[in-house]
């Protein structure tokens, strides 16, 4: 029944029914004039039936139609959503105002003004529906018109850009030089010949020293600088003592401060 009064759809796009709250199971059956979005929508559908420009519509006739329609529904003992009844009451009030002679010019709006206001609302609602239809039938991006399917994105290359001022550079330099002149005690690195180095040298010689030979001969390539000489001598001597104990080397010194001679332990001792 409601559908019968419904105006034409506003465009090829099929619109879904709006979600409306469903009545509770045990509440009285509420027919909210299914298919209409409220009393204004119903009024608009009825107005379209007048087949005249909405601007020239007879509001009085429209009010009658609405009231008759609502009456019809109520005869079926169907309960209507409250706002349809509110609209019915308001239209009945409007109708009485339109039929009665104009009251003295007062603060209350006249029947004509109220009718004009309702006509305006109907026009505006219809205009918005048409606008929605025109909007939705435009060539829409992603449906009718398409952007580049394989866009080539701009690659962002981040490049660090360092900055420092000359003042920062100079204060950094001065500060650290200053720091160093106070805190650094220059302990000159001692040049040391280790015991291991002495031993390594002597072990390489073992097997080839058949004659008594002064130790200085082997060490001479290492005794380059005066600072290192004592260290080389001490380490080589220490190592030689170790090797004697291991039975690999023989040592001989002919007198105090005389050269220290060495040879392989295995060599034949002619002199005893």
């Amino acid at each position, binding site marked *: 029944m409601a559908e019968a009064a419904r105006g034409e759809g506003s465009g090829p796009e099929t*619109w879904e029914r*709006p979600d409306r709250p469903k009545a509770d199971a045990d509440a009285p059956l509420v027919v909210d004039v299914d298919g209409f*979005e409220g009393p204004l929508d119903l009024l608009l559908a009825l107005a379209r039936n007048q087949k005249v420009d909405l601007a020239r519509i007879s509001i009085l006739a429209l009010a009658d139609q609405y009231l008759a329609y609502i009456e019809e529904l109520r005869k079926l003992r169907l309960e209507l959503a409250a706002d349809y009844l509110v609209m019915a009451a308001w239209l009945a009030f409007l109708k009485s105002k339109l039929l009665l002679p104009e009251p003295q010019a007062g603060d209350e709006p006249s029947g004509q003004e109220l009718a004009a206001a309702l006509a305006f609302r109907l026009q505006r*609602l219809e205009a918005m529906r048409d*606008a*929605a239809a*025109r909007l939705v039938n435009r060539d829409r991006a992603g449906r*009718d018109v*398409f952007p580049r399917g394989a*866009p080539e994105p701009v690659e962002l290359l981040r490049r660090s850009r360092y900055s420092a001022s000359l003042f920062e550079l100079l204060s950094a330099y001065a500060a650290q030089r200053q720091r160093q002149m106070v805190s650094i005690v220059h302990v000159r690195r001692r040049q040391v010949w280790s015991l291991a180095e002495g031993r390594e040298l002597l072990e390489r010689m073992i097997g080839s020293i058949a004659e008594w030979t002064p130790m200085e001969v082997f060490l001479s390539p290492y005794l380059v600088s005066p600072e290192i000489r004592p260290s080389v001598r001490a380490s080589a001597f220490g190592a030689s003592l170790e090797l004697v104990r291991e039975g690999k080397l023989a040592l001989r010194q002919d007198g105090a401060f005389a050269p220290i001679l060495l040879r392989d332990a295995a060599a034949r001792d002619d002199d005893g």
Partner: protein
Amino acid sequence: MAEPTAITSLAPEAQRMALRMVEAILFASAEPLSADEIASRLPDGSDVASLLRELQHAYSGRGVTLVKVAGKWMFRTADDLAFLLRREQDEPKKLSRAALETLAIIAYHQPVTRAEIEEIRGVSTSKGTLDVLLETGWLRMRGRRKTPGRPITYGTTEDFLIHFGLESVGDLPGLEELRGAGLLDGRIPPGFSVPEPRDAPDLTEDEDPLDPEDLLPSALRED
């Protein structure tokens, strides 16, 4: 130069190169680019406006055309080839009649509050309707109306313009007629001023900025 209005002093070769660059930049992007964005990637002093005009002319009537949407430029397939390219899976989510009507009202009446939308439609707006619309990215909350209750005002986004192929909200179909008929006027009966829809990012005189908590996702569910 062939173009009498072009005040550019570029040699033809440089002019051709600049044109190729604009073409490449726009072709590479799936989103519209503003003239300024394009200019920032061209040699200094390029007359972007005239290059865009020339490019648009070169592509007119082709399978791909250069269009201006949301005040920006983009290449797009030609309107009349929709039949060729339309594919089922491309169909954007269908909006309910209520949502579509609400969208149109917001587009034409923006900035507009929920109460004003309801006044026009004559029904209350179900919560879901605005949610669905906000989700499309076509709508945004703009601010709050400086009236008691400080209701949120809604407007359309750049995505809205891009999706519906509009250069600005001033290009909404039928806008002039509607305005002429006084149908965009909120007051009943028609008053003195005829408001124009505006989606300018700055708020109107009767709008306040949104409250910080409005920007939380839950704020979309305005009651």
